[in-house]
């Protein structure tokens, strides 16, 4: 189990590296999907299945799908993927920066293995993540309303940004 969590952590970092090395956006979205699947598996391994489910449905199924459709705006005849020397150079340079910083900082015990999870205590208990998120409706009601208001405002912001014609925010033609 420990090695599975370590493998998922490595997959997460490798997927994000695939996004950060700035390939063509068609391939960058693949890296982001891999990273979010690995992150979801990571959260499942730690026991918080509700938060993992929210990540899958809202992030992967909502936001990333919209991103995948929007990369159609980045169409180019020869998309540079992971075989392009510029992309590989970016990836190698970023890994060198992070691990150079680790070596310079003395690793800080990065080789200790230890993961704490949510306890499995049976059926007649409430899981920690379910009970935590349900506090949105009790003590967190103010923040819940603020978040909902923010989402409503974002809807109008997006509408005004893409309206176009003579009243849009960014429009020259």
């Amino acid at each position, binding site marked *: 189990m420990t090695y599975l969590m370590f493998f998922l*952590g490595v997959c997460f970092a490798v997927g994000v590296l695939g996004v950060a090395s700035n390939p063509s956006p068609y391939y960058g979205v693949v890296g982001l999907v891999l990273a*979010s699947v690995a992150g979801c598996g990571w959260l499942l391994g730690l026991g918080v299945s509700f938060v993992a489910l929210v990540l899958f449905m809202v992030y992967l199924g909502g936001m990333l799908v919209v991103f995948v459709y929007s990369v159609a*705006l980045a169409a180019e005849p020869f998309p540079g993927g992971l075989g392009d020397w*510029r992309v590989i150079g970016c990836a190698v340079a970023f890994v060198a920066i992070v691990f150079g910083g680790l070596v310079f900082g003395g690793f800080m015990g990065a080789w200790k293995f230890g993961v704490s999870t949510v306890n499995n205590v049976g059926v007649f208990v409430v899981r*920690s993540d379910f009970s935590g998120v349900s506090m949105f409706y009790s003590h967190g009601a103010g923040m819940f309303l603020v978040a909902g208001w923010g989402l409503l405002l974002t809807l109008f*912001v997006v509408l005004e940004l893409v309206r176009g014609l003579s009243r849009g925010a960014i429009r020259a033609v």
Partner: protein
Amino acid sequence: MSPLHLSFYSAFIFSGLGLAFHRTHLVSALLCLESMMLSMFVGLSMWSIENQVSSFTMVPILMLTFSACEAGTGLAILVASTRTHGSDHLHNLNLLQC
């Protein structure tokens, strides 16, 4: 630092570096912002797991909400600048260049 902490911390740094050294496309920079948000989500969830503070579980959900707002706004800016400039290449956004 345990390996899992190293994993999401280095993922955040990778995405920050990818955002800083962006190359051609605006949507690549937006994807790097999304991966920063993803690593922060995993980090906040791990905080609530490892400290066994169950009420902190609402914080990653809240952050996901505001990140959805930010992603939508970023994509609207992408669409608007593609309509104006014809593509989302960053070297076309040069009106303020001296």
